[in-house]
């Protein structure tokens, strides 16, 4: 790669150009693409935790759902301005992240995984038991979101939804990029590599982990809020274990620790599901499962890894 230093920025520019270009290339599929963007943001939050900080989690949907309900209830109660909904979601989800981080960071991989799972399940159960606030299993009704910036209404074709989600994704992606290439991000990678040595370098490991946990939680919350606002509906599945598991799956599929892997994994999985489901409504799971197994067995670090290996082979 060092032989052609322009390659990486060129690929990145191409990636985002393609993302924007999709708006023009697939005008009938914008609802799908905005869900890809939302999933990408969710998986991005997971990459920060799992890919950079090495904290395994099966409960990220708790923050996603909290953000979704926060934005949804805010709109339901009369304040439908979208951007403030995003801010509220980020703040609440981030706060919950910071509060629960100490619980998660005790013990090793498996206990962390199970504690996050347990907390996620508990939040889901709590939401089910409070139908007065969340609408319970039927879902939250009356979510009326005002036009973005007062100008762009959420329309049937999903145009506003897509551009809005893509813009938020892009902005948060840039922020994440800044963070991971900062000393903070390097410290995180050090922690992931060898957590015991980092204090010797003067890094407050625990504080760093809590900080990234809160940041990832906030990102997941914003993704949830985007979902609530673009679909004008929230239900318990936003908090479900299935959503957490699927996010982790998309991340591993795409490739960890590169930020772009998160985006690619989300895009590939969502689009593949869509295509396969159209071709074979009853048995698409078989094909997706086989594809996942193949990528895992190939072992090059997910789709992005395969792509990079192919590039290396070609050059």
């Amino acid at each position: 790669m060092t032989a052609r230093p322009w390659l990486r920025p060129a690929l990145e520019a191409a990636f985002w150009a393609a993302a924007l270009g999709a708006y023009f290339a697939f005008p009938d599929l914008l609802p799908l693409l905005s869900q890809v963007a939302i999933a990408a943001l969710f998986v991005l939050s997971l990459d920060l935790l799992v890919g950079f900080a090495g904290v395994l989690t099966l409960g990220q949907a708790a923050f996603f759902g909290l953000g979704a309900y926060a934005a949804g209830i805010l709109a339901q109660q009369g304040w439908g301005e979208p951007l403030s909904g995003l801010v509220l979601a980020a703040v609440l989800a981030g706060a919950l992240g910071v509060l629960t981080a100490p619980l998660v960071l005790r013990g090793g991989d498996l206990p962390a995984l199970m504690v996050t799972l347990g907390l996620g399940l508990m939040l889901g159960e709590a939401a089910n038991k409070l139908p007065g606030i969340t609408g319970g299993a039927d879902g939250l009704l009356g979510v009326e979101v005002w036009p973005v910036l007062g100008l762009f209404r959420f329309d049937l074709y999903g145009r506003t939804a897509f551009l809005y989600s893509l813009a938020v994704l892009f902005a948060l992606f840039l922020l994440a990029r800044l963070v991971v290439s900062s000393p903070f991000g390097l410290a995180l990678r050090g922690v992931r590599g060898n957590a015991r040595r980092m204090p010797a370098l003067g890094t407050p490991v625990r504080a760093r982990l809590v900080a990234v946990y809160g940041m990832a939680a906030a990102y997941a919350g914003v993704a949830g809020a985007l979902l609530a606002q673009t679909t004008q509906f929230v239900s318990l599945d936003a908090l479900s274990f299935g959503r957490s598991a699927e996010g982790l799956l998309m991340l591993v599929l795409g490739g960890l620790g590169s930020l772009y892997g998160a985006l690619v994994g989300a895009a590939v999985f969502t689009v593949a599901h869509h295509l396969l489901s159209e071709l074979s409504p009853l048995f698409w799971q078989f094909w997706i499962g086989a594809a996942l197994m193949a990528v895992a067995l190939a072992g090059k670090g997910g789709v992005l890894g395969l792509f990079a290996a192919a590039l290396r082979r070609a050059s």
Partner: protein
Amino acid sequence: MRAGLTRRGAAAAFGAAALAPLARPAVAQGEAVRVGLILPLTGPFASTGRQVEAAVRLYLRQNGDGFGGRRVELLVRDDTGVAPEVTRRIAQEMVVRDRARVLAGFGLTPLAFAAAPVATEAKVPMVVMAAATSAIVARSPFVVRTSFTLPQVTAPIADWARKEGIGNAATLVTDFAPGLDAERVFKERFLAAGGAVPLELRSPLRNPDYAPFLQRVRDARPQALFIFVPSGEGAALMKQFAERGLGEAGVRLIGTGDVVDDDLLDAIGRPALGAVTSHHYSAAHDSPENRAYVEAFAAANPGVRPNFMSVGGWDGMHLIAEALRATGGDANGDKLLAAMKGRSWTSPRGPMAIDANTRDVVQDVYIRRVEERNGRFWNVEFDRVPAVRDPGA
């Protein structure tokens, strides 16, 4: 170098080929009226979706696909049943990309809630064939329902229980919105008629081991136990009810028909004998239309008995077909909707109608008992309440 180019080229070609279906050109506006059927065909609610799909396809096979001079084309998509945003997205795609003129299906309440605004904005009738919460029809002026509502089928069993002289009844429902609805309606009706509800139990949706709840019931010894669980869970509950000897202890089992789902009743078998339930459809309904329906359904789907979900699909397709005939093939949304409102016909379930104002289903609700006939188990109707409207949320 050549190998690398070929591989990259292949990757690009593969990518383009994979994406090609996405960039489908706009469909020429032909004669076919597209009906978009959105159902849970995989996942935990797959049996619901498959029953509905089978019934819709059976209708089209039996009646042809031409109504009012227009051909009907069915588009079936799976929404997995657990992600309302997917249901909504599919509804949008069907309306925008596939130019569907009618949306149909909707296996659960949150899925219908999520998709309804799409119907409103696109001005397309939305025929709800399975979901059962009262508030669905109010969500959009284009929603029409051919399934049932839980309050509609719960009230009659409460009334019947009082008529039978049952003084007190415990309730056991699954702890989620439909279960809570059923519990609320049963309690209201039962208490209003002078009964008592000494014990109310709710079992979690996940890991429903009924043992502790049934033990509580055994301790309390009520005269009856009213149950509501999602169809599919009924088997476990009835078996554990029988295993615990609650029937011998004098507790009568009553509930809504979800518990004795026709799809599974034969497999549940003996433990279900004697259970009295109220519902809008039984495969044992004694009418020539139903006998023909059950026979045709079983012929097309070997080993499967049609259940209350399937009849929602059958009648939904019938409603769409009749509306098209009435408008003379005009697929305009408002006109189709107007043709649907107020329509009545004889369904395999019995007489039914679509209320002209609420767009909700008005139908007879039957009281049935599980009996064995020729080695198979059926819900045999012995009483009915005619033309029941949804009592409201």
